[in-house]
């Protein structure tokens, strides 16, 4: 009897251990399949900074954004990295912006937006110019970047990670229509009316990035 009790106990422990792995999985934990870090193609534009070569406008650890400071983002060569992935209702493409510690992501729901840019730009971009060449051709149609407000995307509250201050933006439609269809990648402008500090491209672990992941 004792022998049977021993083997029964072993079997029971094994089953419980296996079940623990399944039962403990949170329904909101997703599998990240592909990550594109934006360690280049990040540019701050500000009404107060006139020189496109100002070193505080790129390769920074953090960027302070507000009504007259915006961030231009272009995930360079994104098509080469993840251009062939399949996007559907369960597998989506997200842009992730991480806020610095001390800020509460929930406070910014509905206040930060990313908007697809409509004009090609260089790292010499300023508040008034996408690039400094060819006169008006290089000038933004609207100071601060050319975009349609109707195409702007807010934080995806459902998929964002509150604990780690990571704001998720669902850019799947833009990715399909612009990247996978082979159109130009002019990137995004991040706009916020309130002061917000975002971790920049000088931080390899938490720089702005794009992930392709499943949602359930």
């Amino acid at each position, binding site marked *: 009897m004792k022998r049977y009790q021993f083997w029964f106990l072993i079997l029971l422990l094994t089953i419980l251990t296996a079940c623990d792995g399944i039962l403990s999985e949170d329904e909101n934990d997703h599998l990240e399949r592909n990550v594109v870090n934006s*360690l*280049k*193609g*990040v*540019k701050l534009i500000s009404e107060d900074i*006139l*020189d*496109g*070569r100002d070193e505080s406008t*790129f*390769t920074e650890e953090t960027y302070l954004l507000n009504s007259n400071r915006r961030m231009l983002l*272009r995930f*360079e*060569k*994104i*098509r080469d990295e993840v251009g062939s992935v399949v996007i559907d209702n369960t597998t989506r493409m997200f842009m992730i912006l991480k806020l610095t510690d001390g800020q509460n992501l929930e406070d910014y729901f509905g206040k930060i937006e990313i908007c697809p840019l409509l004009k*090609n*730009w*260089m*790292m*010499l971009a*300023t*508040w*008034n*110019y996408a*690039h*400094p*060449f*060819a*006169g*008006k*051709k*290089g*000038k933004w149609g609207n100071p601060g970047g050319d975009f349609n407000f109707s195409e702007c995307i807010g934080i995806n509250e459902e998929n964002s990670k509150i604990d780690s201050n990571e704001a998720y933006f669902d850019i799947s439609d833009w990715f399909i229509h612009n990247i996978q269809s082979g159109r*130009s*990648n*002019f*990137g995004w402008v991040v706009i916020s009316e309130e002061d917000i500090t975002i971790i920049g*491209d000088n931080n390899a672990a938490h720089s702005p990035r794009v992930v392709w992941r499943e949602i359930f």
Partner: protein
Amino acid sequence: MNKNYLLLAVAIMLLISLKSMAAPTNVGNGDDGTDLEGFAKLESGPLIESQLRAVNQLRKLNISNIKGLGNLINEIEKNNIYMTNKDVSAKKMEEMGAFHAGLEGKVYARTFSRPHAPTRFFPASLKLSQNQLMALHIHEGLHRALPEEIRDDEKKVSNITLAIISPESTYDQINQVVMEVYPDKKEQIPAGSYTQSVNVSKDSKLNNPSSLELSFRSFGSPKQDETKLQSLPISSIYSISSHLYPFGKNEYALGTGIDISYIKQDDGKSYMGPLGLSLRKLIFTMRGFDLETYGRADLHTLSDEELKNSLMGRDIYKVGVSLIKTTDIVYIQNDLEYTAPSEVKETIANINYTYKFGSTVAARIKAGGRYKNFHAGGFFEMLVSTNFTVESDNSDFGKEELGRNRVVALGPEIMWGRNNFDVKFYGRYLLNSSKETDFDQLGDLMGTGVGQGNLGLSVSYKF
């Protein structure tokens, strides 16, 4: 000494009066050979010495650059001199044509008024002083070197001779006399020459082609839009230029130049700029016009990385021609210049950009007036550059073709010069351009500069 000159002057004036009495005088005509009975070519002696002294004197006076006298040195220096065995009386010679005699009726020398004709001296000439003989050589040489329409005119030839041999004679005084004897101040029609001599106008740069120059240019003019800064915020450039012409004669001077530059930015940063290397050569001079060609390379081999890694970091290769006309009161210069295409790379935040400049053609007119030691004028230029492109090999920026650009500029130029020293104030102002193009986009730091224009000051010594 002055007495000798006086004597010679009187002798020459006598010749002039003789000419008016014994009309018309055709130098060398009517030669029946009387004076040629026995003569020998001279290789040494006082006549040869005075010939050399005359040549040296003419060289000191830079006589070759005076209109109409371009061949005078050649005519004297390479002239074969013969000595006759006996004197001939002035009376006899009067029957024969032109000759040069003294108050005592002695004949000293005789030549033909055509290029390269030999000169026969008579034994009486050996009693003349060296200065008188020099004057005689010059006078005879003028008969051969001057344009055909005036070389037979004894009065004009004598006037020029007097101007040359006069104590304390200067280039300007001689030039003034020569200009007066030209009926309509025509430029020289060469009377012939031993070599293909080039007559450089008296104000040609090639008279004193070599130079050492210090210059400063300030790019303080406002940008069209300060947020449209295309290149580095360069505020000024200092340069030292040494252009030396060691090759060939003055008329054929071939020079090399080196320009070293130093650049300062608005924020106080400074660094080495481009190294300029140049060549310049006179192609020809005709009717007072100088046509010069030049080639220039502005290389960034010595420049700091900061400058190399910018729009201003392109190497410049250009060739051009200058057509220059200078008179006593005005100067006009037309330049045509071609700059070859080139490219430069700039990396900003790990993104590589390549700026490709198309070729640039520049047409420039410089003109102004002259008064004593002052030159005041300005320039007007048009520059057209072909397609300018920006492309990136490691970003989705791709390639932007920004098309051709047109830039129109003008500026003042005021110069004061004395004793080979020049002080020049100049400026450049962007008058008009397509697509709001600044000078930045031409990428020619040593040429057009940056921004909307500049003001410059230079001090140079020419030699």
